[in-house]
């Protein structure tokens, strides 16, 4: 099934969707969004591409494979719980650090954000893994 419209759309939509998914991931802490939705969007970007060009071409065009992406997500999620252990809290307690204190660019970053990144990759990876294997048939 080759569709020029879909192919053109997918080629341009993929990077846009990826950027959008990153935005959704980052803003998730204060406004609607988060790692889960972001991960779904990231995966959807590739699935759209795969629908237009086929799974084999999609995998050629990416530098990672879905299994590794899933594993990376899980690894990041687990590692994000470790700083708390070093600080003497129990596993997965959020640890925060404020950058640029008392300036206009005050920025609070913490391990929950890292954890969310892990969720993002794990969800995206598992989605692509399942969809690719079924679509490849």
């Amino acid at each position: 099934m080759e569709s020029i419209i879909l192919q053109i759309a997918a080629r341009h939509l993929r990077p846009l969707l990826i950027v959008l998914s990153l935005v959704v991931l980052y803003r998730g802490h204060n406004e609607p969004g988060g790692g889960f939705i972001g991960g779904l969007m990231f995966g959807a970007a590739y699935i759209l591409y795969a629908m237009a060009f086929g799974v084999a071409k999609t995998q050629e065009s990416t530098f990672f494979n879905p299994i590794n992406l899933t594993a990376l997500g899980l690894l990041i999620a687990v590692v994000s719980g470790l700083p708390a252990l070093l600080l003497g809290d129990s596993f997965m307690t959020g640890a925060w650090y404020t950058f640029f204190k008392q300036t206009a660019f005050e920025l609070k970053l913490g391990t929950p954000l890292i954890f969310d990144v892990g969720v993002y990759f794990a969800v995206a990876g598992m989605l692509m893994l399942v969809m690719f294997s079924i679509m490849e048939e």
Partner: protein
Amino acid sequence: MTTGLFLLILLLVAAIAPFLRKYLKHQAGWIYALWPFAGFLYYLSLLPVIQQGEILIESYEWIPVLGLSFTFYVDGLSVLFSLLVLGIGTFILVYAGYYMRPYPMKGRFLGYLLLFMTAMQGIVVSGNLITMFVFWELTSISSYLLIGYYHEKPEARASALQALLITGFGGLALLGGFVLLAIPYDSYELTTLLSDGDVIKNHYLYIPALILILIGAFTKSAQFPFHFWLPGAMTAPSPVSAYLHSATMVKAGVFLLARLNPVLGGTEVWSYSLTIVGVTTMFVGAWLSVTQVDLKRILAYTTVSALGTLVLLIGTGTEYAINAAIVFLLVHALYKGTLFMMAGNIEKKTGTRDIRYLGGLFKYMPFAAIIMILALVSMAGVPPMLGFLGKELIYEASVAAPKAHLFILTLGFLTNVILVFLSLRLAIDIFWGKEPVYDKKPQEPSLSLILGPFLMVLASFVLGLLPSAMAGPLTSKAITAISPLHDAIILKLWHGFNIVLALSVLTLLSGYLVFRYRHQLLPAIDRFNIRYFRREFTRVFFSMIDAFLVFTKLKTRALQHGYHRFYLMTLFVVASVMVWVMIWRADPIILELNFSDMPINLIAVVVLIIAATLSAVVSNSRVVALICMGVIGFGITIIFIAYSGVDLAITMIMVETLMIILAMAVVYHLPKYQNFSSTGARMRDALVATLVGTFFMVLVLQAGTSTLDAPISAYYKEASYSLAFGRNIVNVILVDFRALDTLGEITVISIAALGIYAMIKLTKKTN
């Protein structure tokens, strides 16, 4: 401090033993024996303190929340058992170090032995029921490993499994019994239990607790009708038989009964069940040993008999009986351990342990022969060995037994006659009887193999000669620990001319007569046994196991049928029925449906959803049905947006889109849609769907009106920014408050994805 530390180091020695074996070479047995020997000396040094009636208690916290601790309780009974466990254990390690030389995995074998020793020593010094149970199970497991040591042989594996299943079953019963026993006391501590036995005796849980604990003790101590695993366990290497299956592990049940006698004992139920089981075991064990020809099996059956005697004596519970029990325990451990080790030696030197093919060994191994004969003399109960004392006390206890003493006395007498006969037979047939042709000339066993038997027989001899001086200190406090009301009797070799002495003489005489006419008697007994004991208990046991397997297969087939649709149906129906019941019982259902404030455009969406639902149900095309499902999903998304659930709406859009794509990708591979299901099946499915659908509706509507607990949302609203610096509550809950849950969830979906991937890739490959 010392008891706990000793056990810990013993466990460490057990753990490193397999790895050090290759550096220690053949000295391993001697070196590993050092630590148990140190323990033996320590408990020996405790004797004077214990003599003054002192009890050493140590406690270490284990799980304080549940009130569990490792408590150690060392009194006279513990010290006596510790001396047996560690003393005999020392000899066994030396013996095994040499005995196992030709076999593979020697290091692991020694490690298992040490592990068992830790467990057994743990049981006898436990001061807490749960502590004891932990060690108790550990003995079952290490015994399994040891019995199945020659694991290439199917019969070794079968015996190991049989022993594990029976003692494991008993262990489970025991745990139940311990839990029930602890309920009236609200404590698992032995000190609390021992302080007042009447609490449980007057409690309605007494009988259930007693039954379960007795099952535990009887299975472990191979009491009738659980006795058959012990002879089966003789497939184990000889050091194991000598240690576990004669001197120590099988005594664990007896130890338990002795330990709990002040708490549970003294009632009619207690004394009747112990007496009946004990007497039966005592006689059946001895009787079945007569026609055996395997040296180790003969010894195993006499061990069963001895264990029966011990249970009987504890059940009788009189002053003489308790004294007899403790003395006989010591007697039996000393001679039976020796005999098993000697059986191993004989097998090693001649290549067989079938007594029909043994004979004339005296001239090849005179020293070993003398040791074995002295042990047999002790078994026959002939002075001056300690065995004589044991038998005298048993007779005295039987004569003075409060109930059915004539019955007990008769069976006891017959048992002892059999023991005398067996002693004569083993001594004379093996060492002087007709000499078969040996493959190679038998030799005297080496020092490592003979040291243990020699010292144990020596102990038996010295203790027998000087009973009050030597055996007294060992046994007296053990006796008062079992039964605080009774005193230790002063042990003497010579009791004067009385009925007991007459019985002893009569026993010896009858034993000799049986031996004299054995060629006439044995075939008759054999015929009798084949006729009436034809169905061996082992076979009954294994057919029970088979029947159980058939049952579980049927059950699995009924519940795990493999039809996904029926799993789903079961899940839906059970869940909705249960929640229906809960809703029914909690509140009257108030369905307040108020559509007045609903905007007109939303009503249009709802109408669209309903129309899509109906066409999904009646459609004859999968694609149409899927598109309808998509319409439903997006319709619900619009409703979410209308009520400002933006988060939910975004997620919903993503999930709905991907689900439809996924389903389409699957549908593409399916065969053409056809109508297979009958009308009945469709009606059933409709019923289930209606049930589940209305259940969800009612659940959602009820959730708005009834509050079970104070809602936690207020807390999250408050804490979300102050603790977690985030204003999106849903996300803060996901990544911070309940991050561990989320971690679990992404792990699960990742594994599920891997599963799907593997399933598809693998089927592709096989096609």
